[in-house]
């Protein structure tokens, strides 16, 4: 019997019991949709947290906190790191403490003053919204939001919760700023000032809520600054944050592992993601397991439908066998019928799950944010549910597999039907 004739045969039987078949397909659909939607929450939350993590950090950055032998990370070490495979840049940043004020014209403010290698910063990702990278030792780059902190005395006095001053709104490029430092040592607290010219302003951060108030000064001033603010600490022993930048996210793990092997204390986004991935893998497996129970419950429906179909069609099966149908063909026809129910149920479930997922992603964040009255979270992309193709494949295999298994016993029963007994059945 050709495959098409087998399919015609099955569809004829399915049409005869439309309501029963519909209810069975519905049960299979509900079971499979429950499985997909449930697991999609695990995938969705995983995606939300991963995206948040990647958005909030420089994903190709590997931070070095020091060495296992507690010796400082030297310039020589940094040079070796630069020579490593897939390393784009190595930046060493010293954070200047004791900043009393930063002034420009009649405005004063604060900032996050860092001494760094600006050439390496540029290679690492530092992009400018205006101006150019410094070419002279007294030129600096400021963060995108730095100018907002520069306020006149009048603006400072007028500050209130309702109205936040906008600070300096004109271009900062070419402006002179004065940085006043006070040493941390108690016995000498005479402040000293340095003058710099702004050559460039960094690009706005990726998130609205992120503030970039950096003041990036070339590392040639490091000795001068650090020996003034911390005269008791030798410059070479002062804390330097070293950051290694990979040329792509895929290489971060390799670089992290190499640096660890070489005895550095390191942290990268992949470290955190590995732990998170493990947690979510376990969570997703658990959700799939719970969802599979729903599919198994729905399979009882398929089993019942197929058992009833075999019982109802005993005489027809007997006639088929009498005129020469192979028992294997009879088994295949019934098995195909239960698979058909599984396939249709799964197909509808997949479409339904995507619709539910879309609705959940649209509706739930709106409701939650409204209930919590959370300000400033509008731009936070919350994904409640995600259905990757792998989930569709897993759910389809489980659902169709369960349909096959539940149809197998009735199909076997059909092949065992005794022709003589079947032919004796009344119409």
């Amino acid at each position, binding site marked *: 019997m*050709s495959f098409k004739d087998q399919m015609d045969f099955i569809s004829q039987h399915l049409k005869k019991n439309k309501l029963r078949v519909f209810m069975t397909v519905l049960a299979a659909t509900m079971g499979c949709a429950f499985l997909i939607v449930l697991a999609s929450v695990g995938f969705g939350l995983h995606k939300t947290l991963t995206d948040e993590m990647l958005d909030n950090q420089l994903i190709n950055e590997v931070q070095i906190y020091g060495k296992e032998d507690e010796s400082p990370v030297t310039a020589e070490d940094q040079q070796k790191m630069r020579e490593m495979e897939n390393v784009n840049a190595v930046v060493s940043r010293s954070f200047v403490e004791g900043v009393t004020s930063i002034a420009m014209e009649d405005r004063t403010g604060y900032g996050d003053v860092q001494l760094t290698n600006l050439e390496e910063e540029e290679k690492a990702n530092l992009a400018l919204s205006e101006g150019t990278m410094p070419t002279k030792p007294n030129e600096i780059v400021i963060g995108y939001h730095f100018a907002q902190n520069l306020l006149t005395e009048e603006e400072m006095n007028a500050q209130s919760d309702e109205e936040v001053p906008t600070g300096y709104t004109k271009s900062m490029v070419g402006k002179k700023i004065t940085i006043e430092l006070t040493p941390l040592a108690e016995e000498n607290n005479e402040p000293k000032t340095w003058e710099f010219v702004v050559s460039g302003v960094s690009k706005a951060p990726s998130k609205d809520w992120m503030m970039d108030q950096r003041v990036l000064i070339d590392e040639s001033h490091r000795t001068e600054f650090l020996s003034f603010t911390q005269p008791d600490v030798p410059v070479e022993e002062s804390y330097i944050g070293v950051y290694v930048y990979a040329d792509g996210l895929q290489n971060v793990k390799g670089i992290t592992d190499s640096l660890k092997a070489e005895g550095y204390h390191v942290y990268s986004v992949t470290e955190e993601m590995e732990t998170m991935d493990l947690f979510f893998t376990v969570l997703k497996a658990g959700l799939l397991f719970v969802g599979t129970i729903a599919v198994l419950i729905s399979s009882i429906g398929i089993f019942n439908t197929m058992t009833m179909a075999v019982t109802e069609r005993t005489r027809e099966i007997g006639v088929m066998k009498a005129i*020469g149908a192979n028992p294997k063909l009879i088994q295949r026809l019934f098995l195909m019928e239960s698979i058909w129910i599984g396939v249709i149920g799964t197909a509808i479930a997949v479409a339904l799950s995507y619709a539910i997922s879309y609705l959940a992603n649209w509706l739930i964040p709106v409701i939650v944010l409204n209930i919590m009255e959370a300000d400033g979270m509008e731009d936070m992309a919350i994904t409640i549910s995600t259905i990757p193709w792998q989930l569709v494949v897993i759910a389809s295999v489980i659902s169709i597999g369960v349909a096959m298994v539940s149809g197998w016993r009735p199909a076997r029963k059909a092949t065992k039907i005794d022709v003589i007994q079947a032919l004796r059945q009344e*119409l």
Partner: protein
Amino acid sequence: MIHIQDVTHTFSIGKKGKEKRVPVLKNVSIDINKGEIVSIVGKSGSGKSTLLHVLAGFMRPESGSIKVLNKETASLSESEHAEFRLNNFGFIFQNFQLMPGLTAFENIELPLKLKGVAKSERRVNVEALIQKVGLSAVADHYPNELSGGQQQRVSIARALVSNPPIILADEPTGSLDSETEHEILHLIQSLNQSLGITFVIITHDDEVANIAHRKYRLHDGALVNGGTLHVV
């Protein structure tokens, strides 16, 4: 063509553990030649239907040999028997045994579908047969829309459609009125003459048995004559 030799079969009846063994066929030997109509007659319980079931392969005899077209069929597996039936036997049943969900055309077509014959070829064969058995007007009717005689014609056409050399008929007119019975018997005779098909007819009705070239009579599972030649 059909050589049944010393076939014996016993049924076990009654509760498990207290079964009673009842012999239904006792050393039955029959030879049937190509192109013959052979009737097997007997009262109810004489074993004639059991003989047909054993011949068709619906059950395996306890002992004895059954050769059909020089092939020993008593030892075939269920699947092999199914294939053998599909290629060599056509069946006509007392209560027609048509598929209620299929039209007359589709019922007749069924053995060809099982054989995997192409749709176009099936259409030609079935249409030719439908004409031959006089069912053109009701080809698209379902069995419950047909009279008893029409249903039996569909059943005969289904038995013939794959050109089997042998047709086994179990009380072919048992559910029909006498007028329709004559029509069906006439059809069987004409098919036998025109196509040379061998018919084995099981019946308790002497009138039906009389269309056969030879008649065997069974009584309590044993043959009481050796195939009386009957002049049709």
